[in-house]
């Protein structure tokens, strides 16, 4: 289970490592599109776009519509959320610590003010 999860994450990150695939995802985040609609703005061949889409599909980042003619591509949000959970964990540890530090700093500032006034 854990290994399967790791492999899935690796596929997601490998898919995201390529600038063209990131651009395709950014385009699909705006609206679904067919392969032909993707060929135009990217100015690369249709087979090349199809290859990138396959990688994205295998990573679960993109799904294809059932309409036999158009088969529009759509972005899928869940795998992206899973990927962002990775950095989120690290962030949480520190953010939770830093929130406590904020409180401490407020006290330190108040004490400092108080101390200075006391000396006058």
């Amino acid at each position, binding site marked *: *289970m*854990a*290994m399967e*999860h*790791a*492999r899935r*994450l*690796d596929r997601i*990150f*490998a898919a*995201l*490592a390529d600038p063209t695939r*990131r651009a395709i*995802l*950014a*385009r699909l*985040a*705006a*609206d679904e599109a067919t392969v032909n609609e993707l060929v135009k703005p990217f100015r690369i061949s249709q087979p090349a776009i199809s290859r990138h889409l396959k990688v994205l599909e295998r990573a679960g980042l993109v799904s294809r519509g059932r309409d036999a003619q158009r088969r529009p591509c759509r*972005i899928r949000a869940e795998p*992206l959320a899973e*990927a*962002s*959970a*990775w*950095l989120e*964990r*690290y*962030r*949480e*540890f*520190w*953010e*939770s*610590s*830093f*929130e*406590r*530090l*904020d*409180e*401490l*700093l*407020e006290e*330190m*500032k108040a004490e*400092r003010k108080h101390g200075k006034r006391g000396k006058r």
Partner: protein
Amino acid sequence: MKNTGTLQVATQGDREVVMTRVFDAPRELVFEAFRKPELLKRWFGPRGWSLVVCEVEFRVGGGFRFVLEGPDGRKMGMRGVYREIAPPERSVHMESFDDYPGESQVTAVMKEQDGKTTLTVTVEYPSAEVRDIVLKSGMEHGAAESYDRLSEVLGEIRQAGTTA
């Protein structure tokens, strides 16, 4: 990065993690909070965790030893040695965790503007593998690749999503 209280975490290259955070206090105070054990005990570690061991010998070549204890009694220990100390702007230390292999170099830089301090911490791990192990501690993930571009990617995608 104008907002106080927003922690940014990103990977840099394949061995580094960079954290940025703004504090609403002058950097002398922030620097003090990072070096004095009695202050560290009041903030270091997520809520519910306590710093049960906190020994700091704050001089170049001096060491530190921290042990955090979680709500379930789980302990996490770390130790290190200070390499460079330039109060209140910069410090560099080496650190290692009891439970993970390798030693990482931690550089903290504090810049002050209008009474607020921007803290930038760069952690350089001995290898990409160690970085990923540390980053995923507590997660159920196994093997790892280098995930460098993630935050950039998520940013791009989020942007595209909002401009749509």
